[in-house]
């Protein structure tokens, strides 16, 4: 079966952790992970500048490893990420901001990717906001 995940909660609300565990389970049980769409506060998971303490997970790094190992598509919604200050180099340039902070494993795209995921997956699982 083909799964799409929607992550709407900020990294520390648990939503991103749960989605990460679920994403791994989809792969280990032999199903297909079509797309992980980070929306609303979920986009904060893509912040490459986060420095968690040693005894805590770096959820941004976890998602990056999953992307590299299993070629999972990680999309952050452009409207949500602009508002919240998650920029890649293109958006940083467009709005002449001095820096960008989106992890390389994450790709900025529009809400169309959420709808496309809904139309082309068998199951869409939402990991809720606070």
């Amino acid at each position, binding site marked *: *079966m083909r*799964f799409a995940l929607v992550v*709407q*909660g900020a990294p520390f*609300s*648990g*939503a991103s952790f*749960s989605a990460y*565990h*679920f994403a*791994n*389970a*989809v792969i*280990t*049980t032999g*199903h297909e992970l079509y797309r992980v769409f980070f929306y609303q506060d979920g986009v904060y998971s893509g912040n490459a500048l986060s420095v968690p303490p040693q005894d805590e997970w770096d959820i941004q790094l976890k998602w990056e490893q999953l992307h590299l190992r299993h070629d999972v598509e990680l999309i952050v919604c452009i409207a949500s990420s602009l508002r919240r200050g998650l920029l890649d180099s293109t958006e940083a340039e467009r709005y002449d901001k001095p820096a960008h902070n989106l992890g390389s494993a994450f790709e900025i795209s529009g809400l169309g990717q959420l709808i496309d995921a809904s139309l082309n997956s*068998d*199951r*869409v*699982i*939402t*990991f*809720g*906001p*606070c």
Partner: protein
Amino acid sequence: MILHTVNKSPLRESSLGSCLQFMAQADAIVLLEDGVYAAIKNVDFGLGAASGRVYALESDIKARGLDARLRDDIKVIGYEDFVTLCTEYDVVKSWS
């Protein structure tokens, strides 16, 4: 048939209440994150109506120290069981 997921504590937010209100007979519930507090024994959060069809994620149960404090009609599952459950229901609806 719908698989409902709830990730909020029943004493703090209304998510579980609304879920139970609109849950059909054949539907099931997965409690995750703070939602697992609804599975605590000796307190009635209305889960009796869905008895036998309520699952709770093990990692969230353990993190919160609830493993020895659960109602006996709660089915504790891992993430791989959660994925399988999603394939057994037509739609997954999250209450947050």
